[in-house]
């Protein structure tokens, strides 16, 4: 194992898993099974270029443009594709909209299916066993762990992404945002609100955060 000269200021030796990964990566490069420049390009795309900023644009436009909102619900691939958000793990989109008496929440109990094109790679908790096991059987309890409480008469619809269909939640537009344009509204939209574990932020919440 070649020594990595950049690790001098690290006091702990690399973990077993880090060594195992480094070993496989160098094997794949040596065998010509991967191009190192390709590895860098893929990481750059999914770490920096694709993420919830895409989904926020889609939701903010749906909130401000009723025709776009209708198009998004009926032809989600075309409406999302209008922004150029297309590709892997977003080939077959379904958009579900929260309403005063309906709240949607998305999970993948069998693995980690998630709409990469609009939300990027999924957060750790979405891929974790606690979330995957209980989102379907105890959605109210799961929402409470995110600090989200819903009135008892709100129907909770859980979407288990077992197929290649990918789900995006349009949260409810918060009160007190009349006249706001799409870029301003984007600040209220969170990744978690587009998975359905939280609501969009209220204007008060972002003002507090800015103080």
């Amino acid at each position, binding site marked *: 194992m070649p020594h990595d000269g950049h690790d001098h200021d690290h006091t702990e030796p690399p973990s077993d898993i880090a060594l195992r*990964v480094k070993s496989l990566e160098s094997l794949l490069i*040596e*065998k010509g099974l991967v191009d190192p420049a390709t590895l860098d390009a893929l990481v750059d795309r*999914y770490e920096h270029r694709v993420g919830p900023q895409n989904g926020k644009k889609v939701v903010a436009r749906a909130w401000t443009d009723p025709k776009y909102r209708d198009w998004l619900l009926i032809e989600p691939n075309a409406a999302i594709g209008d922004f150029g958000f297309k590709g892997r793990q977003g080939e077959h989109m379904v958009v579900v909209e929260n309403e005063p008496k309906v709240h949607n929440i998305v999970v993948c109990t069998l693995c980690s299916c998630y709409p990469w094109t609009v939300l990027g790679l999924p957060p750790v908790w979405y891929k974790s066993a606690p979330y995957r096991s209980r989102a379907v059987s105890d959605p109210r309890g799961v929402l409470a762990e995110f600090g989200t409480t819903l009135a*008892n008469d709100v129907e909770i619809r*859980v979407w288990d992404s077992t197929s290649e269909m990918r789900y995006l939640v349009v949260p409810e537009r918060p009160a007190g945002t009349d006249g706001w344009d799409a870029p301003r509204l984007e600040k209220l939209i969170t990744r978690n609100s587009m998975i359905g574990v939280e609501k969009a932020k209220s204007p008060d919440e972002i003002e507090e955060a800015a103080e």
Partner: protein
Amino acid sequence: MNGGHDLGGMHGLGPINPEKETEEAIFHEDWERKVFAFTVATGLLGEWNIDESRHARERQHPVDYIRNSYYENWLTGTENCLLDAGLVTEREIASGKADCAAAVTPPGPEQALNAVKAGGPADVDAPVTPAFKPGDRVRIKNFHPAGHTRAPRYTRGHVGKIVRIHGIHIFPDTHKDGVTEGVPLYSVRFEAAELWGPDATRGSAVHVDMWEPYLDKA
């Protein structure tokens, strides 16, 4: 298979403890970044499909699957795919040294980015007429295949209602063996009490995507 991956409805796995959204990194360790990259990159070689790669993770010992972190499961899955495809040997994985060069040409960065930007649709053009329509009641078959399936255990034997026809999609159970078979794919709505009994969250429902071979008329 009834493996460690089929988690819906399990108890005892602890609190979710989500990281704060504004503070969460995409990758938490540099090795996760590497696993993500070489898993996607080797997938682009076209030697295995998405259902084969899912099955390569699922078929681990359930204790390992549940105890491993997410990218550890990806690592094991990718090793399994590479071994199954004959692209590497156990000996090479153990040594980290190549015994011979591979007879494939890996995609360069531009080709790889074009491939992920294009995606790979799972629907197929097939002259298949769906047997069910929205509003029909269906029961998920009580079956326990030892191979790959996307019918979660918690739905089997239960009755739901078709709410939507997604189209004709590749059937994952046979796709895992390299067969591309187009069958109708539906969204099936299960009332929570049907799945979970008297302890169910009141006024909730679970929607699950189901391929026609999983369904019987109810």
